[in-house]
């Protein structure tokens, strides 16, 4: 049940704080998103720069970089995912506990970027795992990563706890594991996870 906004402000003046369970729960979740300490390529340096004094990611409650996927809430795919690395990225994602989020940082993680024509470059990590936020740029500036954090926080804030659109960890039917691609003789097998990714329609 939603509380009337005016009443809420009025009660707040009296020192009574009223909220819903959903708001409280999401406020807690969004304010301590711990990223995984996981850098792939060029963007990782900008990711580190974001955590340093000038940009100060700590303002968003996300400065605690965890080396272990078990303790992390969010994975920043910071750089080119190669076909040799892709199975490990999916495996790391599988090892993370729900709720978990993915930010695809930079052109390479989104689509292969400038290296798209390479034989060993995966054309976007969203072929294997669901991505929540994409940030363009090569590499994106630290400000762009902060913007992505804020977008993710808004996304978490808006998630209902029940019904349609509830997050994966509250949905018993949602898939928890994503198949890890195998390294074949010429390419990754399968080339994409059909449940996650569909062939984009290019409008000409």
């Amino acid at each position, binding site marked *: 049940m939603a509380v009337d906004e005016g009443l809420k402000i009025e009660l707040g003046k009296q020192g009574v704080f009223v909220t819903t369970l959903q708001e409280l729960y999401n406020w807690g979740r969004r304010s301590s998103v711990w990223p995984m300490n996981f850098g792939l390529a060029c963007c990782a340096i900008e990711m580190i720069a974001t955590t340093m004094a000038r940009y100060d990611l700590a303002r968003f409650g996300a400065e605690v970089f965890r080396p272990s996927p078990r303790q992390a809430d969010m994975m920043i795919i910071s750089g080119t995912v190669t*076909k*040799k690395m892709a199975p490990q990225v999916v495996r790391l994602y599988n090892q993370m506990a729900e709720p978990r989020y993915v930010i695809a940082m930079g052109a390479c993680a989104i*689509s*292969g970027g400038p290296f*798209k*024509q*390479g*034989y*060993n470059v995966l*054309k976007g990590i969203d072929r294997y795992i669901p991505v929540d936020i994409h940030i363009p740029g090569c590499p994106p500036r630290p400000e762009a990563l902060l913007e992505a954090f804020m977008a993710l926080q808004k996304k978490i804030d808006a998630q209902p706890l029940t019904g349609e659109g509830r997050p994966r960890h509250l949905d018993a039917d949602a898939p928890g594991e994503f198949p890890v691609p195998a*390294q*074949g*003789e*010429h*390419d990754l097998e399968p*080339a994409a996870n059909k449940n996650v990714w569909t*062939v*984009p329609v*290019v409008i*000409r």
Partner: protein
Amino acid sequence: MKTLEEIQAAIEAAVPGAGVEIVPNPAPSGEHSLRLKPETAVEVATFLRDDGELALDYLSNVTGVDWPDKEIAEKVKVTRAVTKTVDGVEQTAEETVEETRKRVEPGFLEVVYHLFSMARSHGPVVLRMRTGNRSDRVDLPSLTPVWRSAEFQEREIFDLYGVVFKGHPDLRRILMWDGFKDHPMRRDYVAPDDFEYEPTPHDEVLARAQAHRAAQQAAAAAQEGTGQ
């Protein structure tokens, strides 16, 4: 530093029958190179490293180069005897015809070594070696026993070009995964067709994009056929 001719003479004196050829380089850089015979390469390399005056103790760079089979069309003037019937009498006359002949120059894989001297601060001396062909005679002697720095670079050439270095201590794929079968840096390697092309004005890319779309539609049609 000695000139390349002097180095060649020194090698011939130290390793009889080395058969080192000078490969000229027409670029302004003027870095001419020496082509070694694979049979004597290790001996020559050891000499270059240990010779007091050359002291090429530092192998900087090892490069693989792929030279695929080249089809060369040449116009050749051919003179041949032609029998003609003139006024009921058979005559033999010589006639010159211009013919286009195609010959295939067999391809090969090449490995290029750039040597410098740290002790005497000179260089580079460029060495090259060729394989017999691109398919079954692809082995060359490894120079890793002479210079350690060749170790990973030769593994890379083995991985990406398929040159087998005999005498290499640990010849495995280095950049691609172990089950990978192709040699992607070869010029005839076809990469997996796995991305959508952007609309582009370049003809070559457009042609590839159209081929890609046709292949995808065929695959989709085949899948529908099996599904029903």
